[in-house]
Structures are given as C-alpha cells and as structure tokens.
C-alpha cells in the first residue's frame, strides 16, 4: 500500500517538526555520497545547486546543449509567494487555501501547506542571486495578480519570469560546477533506471552526440524531467519536452498518479494550419489587463474594433462576476470552448475568442499616466499613447511575440486566443519526502503529481519547482541518505548495470530495424489528435473507450511501420524523437484509462456526464476523493492503488467563482 508519510501533528507544524527531527548527514559523509539529477529546469537546477552547496557529489543531466535551455525558461507571467507586501490580506494560509481550492480539492493538505510556507523564502533566495524582479519606484518588489485569487501575490520580471528564475538557478548550478561539486552532462538523455536490491542506484543514458550508451551510479536518483503535455503533439511545451524518464521509472515500479489531470491554458495563440508544430502561450498575467469577449451575434464577421461595446459579450465577467477575467484556467478554458462550440467564435477558424487590452490601456494606464503628468481632459489618442508605454513595459515581449507569429498588432486590435495544452498536474506519485514508490528514486517539479490537484493555479509551477529543489529536497534527501552512508559506490560494471544497458540497447535496435514507411512525426500527430479530441477539454465514456482502442492500434502500427533514418552510433534526432513518441504511445492509453475511471469532473478533468445544470464541473467526493496511483503490472497492464485524501483543515465545497 502507498504510504504518503505525512508527519503527524498540526498542519502548520508538520514541516517544522519534520525539519527538526529528520536525519542529517555530516559534511564528511556528504562528500562520499553521489546523487544523480536528471533534468535542469527550475526543480533540477535548484536541487543540483542546493545539494552541491551542501557537499554531495552531484551528477546532473539534460538533453539540451546547456542546462539553461530547460523549458522552465519559457514561463512568462510570474511566481507566487505569500509575502503580503501589498497589505491586501495575503497570508500563508490564504495561499494554501487558494491552491487547494484552485486544485479542486484533489491535492494533499500537508504538501500544499509546506509549499505555501516556503514560498517567501524562494523570493528572498532569488533576489539574493540577482534575479531582476520588477520593482516599484521606491525600489521595492512589485506584484501583479493571477487567476483564481483575489490578492496580488505574483512576483514577476516582465513576461520573462521563468527565464530570469532559471538563469538564477542555472548560475547557482554553474557555480557548483566550477567548485567541482556538480558534474554536468548535457546532450545526455536518460534511457532507464538501474535498481539494485530494491533501491534506485543509477541510470543509463544515451549520449546524443555519439549515440553511445553510458552508465552512471548514484546513491540516489532524482528525476526533475518536467511534464508530459507533448503527448497531445500540439502544446505550449518545448519540442523536446517528453515523458521518457518518468515513464521508464514507471516501468521500473514507480506509480504514476492522476495521469488524466491535464491543464488546458485558456490564452494561447490559436492553431493556424496543419503545419503547426507547437502552440504559444500568452501569459495569464495578460488577463489582469485584458478583457475576454466574443460578439453577441453568432458568426459575426465584422472586424473587432467595428463591433460596438453593447454588442460584445464579456462572457467571463457575465458568468463569474466575483472573479471575472481572473477565474482559474480550467474554468476560463471551458467557457471559451462553450462560446466557440455555440457558434460565437472569431477569426478564420472560428476557434478563437478576443483578449482585448484597449479598455485598460485607455482607462487604467492612460488615465493614470495623464494624471501623473497633470494632463487635463486628455483625448483618446493621448490616453492610448500614454497607456501604451505602460503596457509595453509590463508585457512588451509578449505583444512582440504575438505580432511575430500572427502578423497583427495587439496594441491596435484584440488578440485572438484559444485554449491549448500547457501543463500536466499528474506525474510520478511521490510521498511527503518527494520519494517515488521506488526506494531512493525522487521526483521533483512538474514531473511529480504532488501539489496542484486537478488544476494548477497560474504562477504556481515556478513556485513548486523551486520549493522542491531549494527548500524541500535538501532536507528529505538527507533523511534518506543518512541510511546509505555505509554503501560504497557500486561499480558500473555490476551485472545490474550491464543488464539494463542491454535492454536499452535492444529497444533501440528494435526501433532502428523496423524501417517502415511512415515518419515518427506522423505517428505523433495522430496520437495528438486522438488525445485532444477524446481526452482533452471534455471527455466522455464512449470517447475514452474508443481512444484506448485507437491508441493501441496506433502503437501496433508504429512498431511495424515507423521509419527512422540514420544510424545508432551517431547524432540522430529522429531516433531520439522516436524513442520519446514510443513512450507517449503507452502513456496516452494510461491517461485515457485514468480519465475513464474517474467518473466525476474536477479541475482540468471534465467528464461530460458529470456537470451541474449551469455546465460547471461536478465533483463526486464520495467516490473520488483520492489520488489514483497506477502501478504497471505487465506490458500495458495496470493496477490502480488509491491514496485517500483527508481534509483536516479545509472543508471541500463546490468551487464557486461567481
């Protein structure tokens, strides 16, 4: 049975008690202990830096050419922290409460409370590292607001917050590389975990330049390998983002939790054609100042600026007056889909809604600037000019990006946006110490399932990644490794390493000998289409059953007909991709099974059979207040273990943002 190892005691004292009583490793012993970290995004880089600083011998791996490229870099809007610098009623409890509610009561109270407790430390740490957060004129840190909350607690650096935080973590990591505490292996992709006597003891990697398989030992292994949104083919993830490391760990015994919990982000640039390779997010922070609307008339073909105010339907403000444009992502996405499905969509494909800045540009920023400059009775043109300057400073890079992609100027015409796959709340099951169900194998950041329940609030991914890496794993890793100080490094000539490497080698050979007629990309696209249509924003029993069969058929087809050019012992991006898509073809089935099993709607998981008369998600707390943790029992066969969720402090209610 799964033991979440949540410490006893009062919620707000659990983490303090844990830190006060966990086992420690003395500095001399730390030097003898080796830790493998796969992935160098916010979670992986911060963990590598923090553990290196403590004196552990860290080996860090990434598939990109440099650890600074990890996809955390693309996060735009910000990072939450319960600092209450705005004096607007924020507190650790409030951030905890908002996160649990935002996750639709499907996350653990103890984990989320810990996250909220360390949130403030993250900001302090990042400032100390030199992260250039946005500031007020008085020199103090600035905040903006994000969806699902009524306070301003989001710290940011224009629309490039992820970049700035990752560079901070990357610099801390490189400092440890220079000091010899971390050894960095870039362009290395993990292929499998080596488990010896029930404990994770190493990994097999493929050197993506030479194609050689390599073996690495560690007293423990951390996976910080990000989410699996690319199972949908089109998503806001980077092209290389994949599930492979987590999936291989799953096949070695790690439970995969809540795989169906996927976040569809409401504000992305819509698909423009079949050639599309990825989708681009327009930060949630834009909903601070942008108003979302569609025409009141169906199939209205007028240009947006020609549609008068009274003929616009600001449907989020109409349906959810309390939160308006700042409802959580799942709610905003479904509302956009509802309008488009009902025939009110805009643009050539009619699969888009408007995100319009004109109102705030003029009335909020333009007027404030006019007042500041003492301009009496300014005309609209002046207000636009003044407001534009402020908007540019807040979101300039996002507006530029939109214009490059669409050829339209969002200062002049409203953006067209539509929901797209963005984040996966599900991931490897971990206990309170962030250890998976394989002893000695830990999982951090988006790759684990832990803190966001069925829906993640905006600006919380960066918070979780850095909380896990800087402030949680340094303690919990010590607690585990204290029991391993007597273990001598196992030579990689050990039979266990040889065997796993041989398995990896066999799989690569199998892939390369198929030599069929269809490209890897074509299989990935077909998988994505099945997932988006049947396991996307709305799901139902029949569709999910069909999807499972279709994915099985597609997988069979893949292993018969895929064509991979090039050789094994050389750089071969098509082979890298094929190996990742093969794993997505297995994961997709499990996601559909999980979605089929969860006969309720919660957060990002919307089962059409389970909704209120107003079309809101309807939870079933009696049947499903648990984490669904899937254990693989054979080739594409799983057993479902349930971890009950117990709410001791918060009383779950129907989420209401009205």
């Amino acid at each position, binding site marked *: 049975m799964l033991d979440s190892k949540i410490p006893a005691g009062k919620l707000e004292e659990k983490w303090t008690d844990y830190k006060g009583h966990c086992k420690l490793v003395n500095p001399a012993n730390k030097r003898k202990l080796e830790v493998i970290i796969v992935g160098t995004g916010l979670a992986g880089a*911060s963990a590598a830096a*923090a553990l290196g600083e403590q004196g552990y011998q860290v080996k860090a791996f990434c598939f*990109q*050419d*440099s*650890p*600074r*490229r*990890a*996809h955390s*870099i*693309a996060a735009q809007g910000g990072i939450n922290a319960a600092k209450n610098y705005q004096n607007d009623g924020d507190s650790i409890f409030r951030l905890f409460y908002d996160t649990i509610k935002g996750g639709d009561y499907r996350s653990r109270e103890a984990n989320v409370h810990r996250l909220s407790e360390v949130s403030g*430390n993250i*900001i*302090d*740490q*990042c*400032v*100390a*590292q*030199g992260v*250039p*957060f*946005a*500031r*007020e004129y*008085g*020199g*103090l*840190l600035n905040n903006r607001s994000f969806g699902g909350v009524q306070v301003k607690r989001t710290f940011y*650096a224009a629309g*490039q917050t992820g*970049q700035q935080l990752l560079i901070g973590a990357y*610099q*801390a990591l*490189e*400092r440890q*590389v*220079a000091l010899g505490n971390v050894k*960095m292996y*870039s362009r290395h992709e993990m292929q499998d975990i080596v488990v010896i006597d029930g404990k994770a003891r190493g990994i097999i990697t493929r050197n993506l*330049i030479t194609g050689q398989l390599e073996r690495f030992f560690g007293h423990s292994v951390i996976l910080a390998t990000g989410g699996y949104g690319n199972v949908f083919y089109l998503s806001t993830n*980077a*092209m*290389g983002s994949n599930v492979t490391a987590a999936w291989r760990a799953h096949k070695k015994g790690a439970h995969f939790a809540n795989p169906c919990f996927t976040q569809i982000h409401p504000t992305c640039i819509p698909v423009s*054609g079949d*050639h599309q*390779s*990825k989708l*681009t997010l327009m930060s949630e922070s834009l909903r601070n100042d942008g108003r979302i609307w569609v025409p009141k008339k169906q199939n209205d073909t007028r240009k947006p600026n020609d549609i008068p105010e009274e003929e616009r339907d600001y449907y989020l403000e109409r349906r959810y007056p309390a939160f308006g444009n700042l409802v959580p992502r799942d709610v905003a996405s479904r509302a956009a889909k509802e309008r488009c499905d009902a025939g009110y969509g805009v643009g050539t494909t009619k699969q888009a809604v408007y995100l319009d800045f004109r109102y705030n540009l003029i009335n909020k920023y333009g007027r404030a600037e006019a007042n500041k400059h003492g301009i009496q009775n300014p005309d609209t043109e002046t207000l636009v000019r003044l407001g534009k300057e402020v908007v540019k400073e807040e979101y300039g890079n996002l507006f530029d*990006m939109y214009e*490059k992609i669409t050829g339209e100027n969002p200062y002049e015409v409203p953006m067209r946006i539509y929901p797209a796959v963005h984040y996966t709340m599900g991931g490897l099951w971990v206990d309170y110490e962030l250890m998976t169900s394989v002893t000695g194998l830990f999982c951090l950041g988006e790759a684990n399932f832990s803190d966001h329940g069925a829906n993640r609030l905006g600006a919380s991914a960066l918070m979780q990644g850095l909380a896990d890496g*800087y*402030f949680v794993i*340094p303690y919990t890793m010590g607690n585990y490794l204290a029991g391993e100080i007597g273990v001598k490094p196992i030579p990689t000539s050990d039979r266990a390493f040889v065997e796993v490497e041989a398995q990896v080698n066999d799989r690569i050979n199998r892939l390369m000998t198929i030599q069929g007629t269809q*490209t890897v990309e*074509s299989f990935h696209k077909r998988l994505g289409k099945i997932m988006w249509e049947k396991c996307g924003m709305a799901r139902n029993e029949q569709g999910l059953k069909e999807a499972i069969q279709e994915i099985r058929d597609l997988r069979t087809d893949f292993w018969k007909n895929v064509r991979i*050019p*090039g050789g094994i012992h050389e*750089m071969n991006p098509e082979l890298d991709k094929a190996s990742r898509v093969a794993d997505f073809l297995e994961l997709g089935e499990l996601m559909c099974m999980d979605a089929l099993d969860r006969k309720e709607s919660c957060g990002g998981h919307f089962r059409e059979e389970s909704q209120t008369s107003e079309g809101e998600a309807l939870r079933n707390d009696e049947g499903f207040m648990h984490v669904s943790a899937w254990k693989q029992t054979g080739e594409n066969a799983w057993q479902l273990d349930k971890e009950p969720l117990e709410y001791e402090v918060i009383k779950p209610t129907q989420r209401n943002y009205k």
Partner: protein
Amino acid sequence: MEHYNMNLTLKVWKQKNADTSGKFESYKVSNISSEMSFLEMFDVLNEQLVREGKEPVAFDHDCREGICGMCSMYINGRPHGPWQGTTTCQLHMRAFRDGDTIVVEPWRAKAFPVVKDLIVDRGAFDRIIQAGGYISVNTGNAQDGNNIPIPKDDADKSFAAAACIGCGACVAACKNSSALLFLSAKVSHLALLPQGDTERKQRALDMVAQMDKEGFGSCTNTGACEAVCPKEIEITNIARLNREYLSAGLATDSKSH
C-alpha cells in the same frame, strides 16, 4: 494578414560530425505557407527527406518561442535571418517570397565547433558563466527580498541585460568571433545590482580570462553583435564591461587569487 504559398530552394550546410568536412546541399520545398515559422518549413523539408529515404538536416531547437536560445541558424548571411530582434524560431515565412533561394549555415566560430549540420557546441558559454557569472550565495542565506531596495531604473537596466538568451548570434555575427556582448550582458546584469557588487571586480577579470582561453576573438567595436541580437542587448553593456574590467585591473586587492 495576406496568406500565400511559396516554392523555395534551400542551400543548407551538411556536415556529418566535427571530424569531417562539410558542404552545401540543395533542396527544393514546395507549398510553404507564409504562416509557417522558419523551423516549421525545416520540419516540412525533413519529413520529405525521411520519406525519400534520405537523412534529414540536424538543427538545434526547443522552445520555439524565442526564449530558450537553442535555435541557431545563419540565414542568408545573418544570424537568425532578416527580422530585427527575432530568433530563428520566431522568424516566419512571410519574410520570404515565392522562388527565393535561402542559404542556411551553422554559427561559424572557432570556439563553437560544428557538432553536425547546423548544430554547434556552445559549451564555451557555460564555461564563461562558471568562471564567475553568478553571485556567490548559498541556498538559505537570504534576507527578506524587500530589505534590498533597488532603484527601478537600475533593476530595469539589469533586467534588460539579463534578457540575453545565450544563443551565440553575437559571436556568429562578429568578424572576430568575439563573445563580448554575451559576457558584458552577464557582467552588467550582476554589476547593476547591489547584490552583485561584492564580487564585481573579480567577476569581470575571471570571465574575460575564460573568454580568451576559449578562443573567442577581440572586440573591435563594429557593433555587428548588437545589430543581430534577437533580444536587442545593447552594446553599451560592452562599455560598462570595459569600465568594470579596467577598474578591476587597477585595483590591487582584486588580484588575490
């Protein structure tokens, strides 16, 4: 926006690995939509090559939204192609016309050896950061973030320098293959903040020494780096670096290690 399709000729650098010499190959692609990104056009080419049983063109890319710094194509004689302030992945095909021939090469610099086709090794940039591109603060030591007020103007300037994505276009554009724009952006990012002040002298000296060791050339102030930088990092950062470097060199107490 007006949409159109185009047929193009691509002349692309092909090189098996660092040990072999490379050459240009010509390819034809047809029905390329003006709405595609430049890399999506390369996806079309590679799909075509795989179906024909040929080897696709290897190129670096990841986020495809202009922030990870991985993409790195030298297009028609200019890093990242014709658009100002734009990475290769954000360049869109409406920059081209039907019938165009497009020449695509990797970054060319001694410090960036070719790995395969359009992919180069930019590990030298990581090593320059290792030489001092950080603030030496361990996790857990920090004081409250608001205990260090920073004038907004300084914070904004620091941020503008920190926006560098480490793509290496500055090196590729420079006739001397100098990495000074990259290096000066990092020195400026940290030197403009009070947190970075303690180590500013040693940082400038150590990072410049590492740059020289990596085989990058010297800066002769032609400004090609600034002109092609996809993040529009300003050349004034180089002036700031020079001041930092000079004052560090003059200070005797900074030679301690």
